[in-house]
């Protein structure tokens, strides 16, 4: 990937995406056959809160893909972006480590039997969602480790470093490491919507169009449903 320095009009397309969009953005960029965009795109993956912090402090992005409507509203306040488009929805999921898989535990077992859990930091949409879920069931969330983003939670559950974690359904589906899901928990009532926003910078908008078309087009929809995302 060859990238030009900052300044200049021919800078690489800067795409900021929430880390739970890792696989999807990878597929979108890989599926761009003409290669014009993918080869010049810089993908910055981090928790939505981190991305906002970077943009607040002056980082420039041509396309921003965020989880959670609060974060998108915050981004809009900067006035540098066109109105957002919602394109995917995912649900919360309670997952357990490979060793606990198949033990038929309920959510309340996880809390009452002293298992160690992990969730995202509350400034990340996945953490905010987990907090709402916990509050609705009056669970004590204080003992859960707060990981920087949803992929960090997933990785720790996969390795068995924690017993359970609150992640997105789509991250559970993306896992290949034999983690289990607690079925029938209320978690699926809690959802996060993903939206993207394009920079008001006209040149960027023209260049980002191919990418946006593949996100909202047939290829994007197929990739989203394969990864377990729902359409808004």
């Amino acid at each position, binding site marked *: 990937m060859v990238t030009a320095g900052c300044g200049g009009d021919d800078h690489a397309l800067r795409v900021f995406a929430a880390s739970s969009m890792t696989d999807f953005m990878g597929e979108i960029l890989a599926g761009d056959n003409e290669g014009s965009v993918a080869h010049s795109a810089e993908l910055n993956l981090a*928790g939505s*809160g*981190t991305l*906002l*912090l970077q943009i607040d402090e002056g980082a420039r992005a041509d396309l921003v893909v965020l989880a959670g409507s609060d974060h998108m509203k915050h981004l809009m306040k900067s006035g540098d972006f066109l109105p957002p488009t919602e394109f995917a929805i995912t649900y919360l999921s309670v997952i357990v480590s490979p060793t606990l898989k198949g033990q038929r535990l309920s959510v309340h077992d996880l809390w009452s039997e002293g298992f*160690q859990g*992990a969730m995202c*930091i*509350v*400034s*990340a949409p996945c953490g905010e969602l987990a907090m709402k879920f916990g509050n609705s069931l009056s669970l004590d969330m*204080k*003992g*859960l*480790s*707060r*990981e*920087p983003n949803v992929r960090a939670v997933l990785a*720790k559950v996969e*390795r*068995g*470093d*924690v017993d359970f974690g609150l992640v997105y359904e789509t991250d559970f589906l993306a896992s290949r490491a034999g983690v289990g899901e607690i079925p029938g928990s209320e978690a699926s009532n809690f959802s996060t919507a993903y939206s993207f926003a394009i920079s008001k910078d006209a040149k960027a908008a023209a260049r980002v169009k191919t990418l946006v078309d593949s996100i909202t087009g047939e290829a994007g929809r197929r990739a989203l449903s394969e990864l377990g995302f729902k359409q808004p």
Partner: protein
Amino acid sequence: MTSRLPVSIRVLAVLAVSFVALPLLSLLWRVPWARLATLLTRDAVMDALLLSVTTSVVAALISLALGVPLALQLSRMTGLAVSAIRAVVVLPMILPPVVGGAALLFAFGRNGLVGSVLADITGLVFPYTIGGVVLANTFVALPFVVITVEGALRAIDPRYELAASTLGANRSRLTFKIVLPMVRPALIAGGFIAWARALGEFGATITFAGNIQGKTQTLPLAVFVALESDREAALVMSVLLVSVSLIVLVSLRDRWWPVR
């Protein structure tokens, strides 16, 4: 009187100082001084402060307890072995902390090489406990004790020891009454630098010990969390950390780096 340096060198030197000092000044510039006290007494901040102070002090003491014997041993060795051991021990100083955290997980994690055996035998689990924080802190702090103390030990004139032993001092008397008192400044410096390093530890801690308020969420971790949710609190805690480090470095002055 030393001769004056060329202008170009002096300009670059000023640039070097500004490069390091400017980000720190910018931090101070953004701090909401008026609300300092309110922000500092927040629950999450107090929890983190207490945890940070406890774990970093314990880590510094462990680093001294283990690092000084190793430094004594190394200072008596020569050849390839000493270089190899020193390289391994000093590695955590320059290792990306998150790699250190991952390495600790693979060693002392629940399914780790040592951790799984340890948990079976003693029931001791490190990740996500306060013990894990101390372990991560010690991992990064220990090298500072070893190199500081070893350097001082190697600088001792061997004739003192020789004289003491011809006068009949036994091995432990030699070590505790002659050698260690002579490197006292290095012991103090090593201990404080180790403490300051432990206090600032982030990467290994969040990777290995997790981020649980009141249990494993140290000040740097609290800064990281607050940076996205409560930026003012993050700034206040950052300033606290910077001040502590600065005080340690200034009060150690010539003990850490050689001054003519």
